[in-house]
C-alpha cells in the first residue's frame, strides 16, 4: 500500500502515556474506518497487549514472524470489538539482544503493505530499543507531560528524530490540568511548545478514567464514553486523518459541578 503511514509514538521519559496513546489512537483510527495495526516495540517491558485486553489471545509474536516460524497473519491479534484494529505483539525480552534496526524495518514494511496506519509503541529511553523503533518509522508523535523533566527528554528525542530524518514530528501534551495551569503551578501549554517548537496535535486532560480503562484492558475510545480524555484521543485521530478540529483551550475546560458528578458516577460503575 503506497499511502500507508508508519507513525512512531515516543516520549523519551517513561510513564508519560505512550502506550495509552497508542492503544487509544489505534482504537479511534480503526473506529473511523482506517485499517490500523499497533506494533509493540517495547520488547523489554511489553504492555500494549494488556491495555488492549488482548494478553490472553497472543499465540505468536513478532519474534516468530522474523524467524519465519509463523506467517504474519498468524501473529496478528485482531481486536475483539474493533475488527479494524490488529496488534502485533512484542517477542520476549531476550529479543532485544539480537534485534537489529533492519529487523524492525522488515516488520514495519510487511505491516505497511496491509494496513493504512502502523502505530509503533516506542520504549522509553534513547538506547537500542529506541534506535530499533526509530529505524522503522517515517513520521512520529512525541508525547510529553507539562513537567520539566518530561519536556527535557522530549526535546532530546526530537533532536534524535531530526537526525534520523523522521518527519513530520508532531506533539501531544498529556495530563494537562487546567486549574493548575491557570494558577501557574504547572508549565503552560505555551511554555512547552515554546521549547519544543513542534506543531501541537492534541491536548489530553488529566483523567481518572484512563487508570480505570487501563486496568480493565478497555481503551477509553472503545466504548464511546464522554470522558474528556476519550474525546481528546478521538480528536487526535481525526486530526491525523486530516480533519480540521480546533484545539481545546485549557482555560475554558474548568469543569463544572455537573461534569464532576457525572464523572464520579462513571468512576464507580464497573
Amino acid at each position, binding site marked *: 500500500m503506497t499511502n500507508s503511514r508508519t507513525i512512531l509514538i515516543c516520549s523519551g521519559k517513561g510513564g508519560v502515556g505512550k502506550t495509552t496513546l497508542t492503544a487509544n489512537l489505534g482504537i479511534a483510527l480503526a473506529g473511523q474506518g482506517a485499517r490500523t495495526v499497533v506494533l509493540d516495540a517495547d520488547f523489554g517491558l511489553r504492555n500494549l497487549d494488556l491495555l488492549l485486553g488482548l494478553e490472553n489471545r497472543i499465540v505468536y509474536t513478532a519474534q516468530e514472524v522474523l524467524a519465519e516460524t509463523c506467517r504474519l497473519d498468524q501473529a496478528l491479534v485482531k481486536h475483539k470489538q474493533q475488527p479494524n484494529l490488529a496488534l502485533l505483539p512484542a517477542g520476549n525480552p531476550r529479543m532485544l539482544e539480537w534485534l537489529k534496526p533492519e529487523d524492525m524495518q522488515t516488520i514495519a514494511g510487511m505491516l505497511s503493505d496491509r494496513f493504512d496506519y502502523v502505530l509503533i509503541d516506542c520504549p522509553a529511553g534513547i538506547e537500542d530499543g529506541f534506535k530499533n523503533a526509530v529505524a522503522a518509522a517515517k513520521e512520529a508523535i512525541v508525547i510529553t507531560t507539562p513537567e*520539566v523533566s518530561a519536556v*527535557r527528554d522530549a*526535546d*532530546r528525542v526530537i*533532536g534524535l528524530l*531530526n537526525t534520523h530524518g523522521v518527519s513530520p514530528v508532531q506533539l501531544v501534551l498529556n495530563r494537562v490540568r487546567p486549574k493548575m495551569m491557570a494558577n501557574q503551578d504547572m508549565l503552560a501549554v505555551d511554555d512547552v511548545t515554546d*521549547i519544543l*517548537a513542534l506543531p501541537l496535535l492534541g491536548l489530553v486532560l488529566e483523567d481518572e478514567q484512563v487508570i480505570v480503562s487501563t486496568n480493565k484492558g478497555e481503551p477509553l475510545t472503545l466504548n464511546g464514553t464522554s470522558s474528556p480524555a476519550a474525546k481528546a484521543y478521538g480528536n487526535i485521530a481525526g486530526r491525523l486523518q486530516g480533519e480540521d478540529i480546533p484545539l481545546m483551550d485549557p482555560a475554558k475546560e474548568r469543569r463544572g459541578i455537573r461534569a464532576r458528578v457525572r464523572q464520579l458516577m462513571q468512576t464507580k460503575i464497573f
Partner: protein
Amino acid sequence: MTPELSSQSPFCLRLPAFRSVPWQQWLPSQLPSLPRQAIDLDTGDWSLSCRDLEELLVALNEAGHHVQAVMTRCSDTLISAAALGLIARQVSTDSTGDGSTHDQAHATSMDAELTVHRGTLRSGDHIESHGHLLIVGDVNPGGSASADGDVYVWGRLRGRAHAGRRGDSDARIVALQLRPLQLRIAELVARGPEERPQPGLAEQACIVEGAISIEPAKPPFAAQQT
C-alpha cells in the same frame, strides 16, 4: 585556479560541484598541482560526515598536504569539521551565484573564524568552535555551545554557553534572550539569572571586575580580530 583570497591567504583547494563526480576519483588528478604548504579546503555543497571528511584529510595528508581550514556551505560538514578539530568556516548557504559566494568567502576570511550554525540546539546537542560561534536558532535547556571566542545566539539561550574556552576573558556571550542554565567565560562560571529577561532587549554576559555580569548588549557585534 585563480587566487580567490588575498595574497597572504593559503592556497584554497575547491572540491568539484556537488555530486558531479565522486571526489575520491577527482582528488588524485589534482594532487600534483597543489603547493606543498598548508592549504584550505572548500567543500562547497558536499555534505560530508566525520568519516568522509577524515578520509579526505588522510588522502591529502598522505600526499604531504596539510589542511588547516575547511570552508563549506553545508552545516553538516561544518559540524563534522569542528568535530575533527579543524578550523571550520561557513560560506554563504544560498547558491544563487558564484559572485555572492566569492564575496562571502572573502568576508569570512577577513574576520576571525566564525562558525555559523543554523537550527535549534536541542537537549544533548553540543557545538563548539575554535573561533567565534553564531547560532541562528535557540539553544534549548540541556544543549550547550562553546567557543574559543564569543558566542552569539540569534534566538533564545536557555542551555549552557562557554565563551573564551582558552582563557580569553574579553570573550562575551550575546543572546536575543539570555536565560541560560549556566554561563562560562574563560575560567569563570555563573548560573543564569532567575528573573525573566525583559522582552525585546538583547543581552550580553561579559566579565566585569572579576565576575560575570549581564547587561544590555552593546555594539560592535562584528567578530573582532585580535
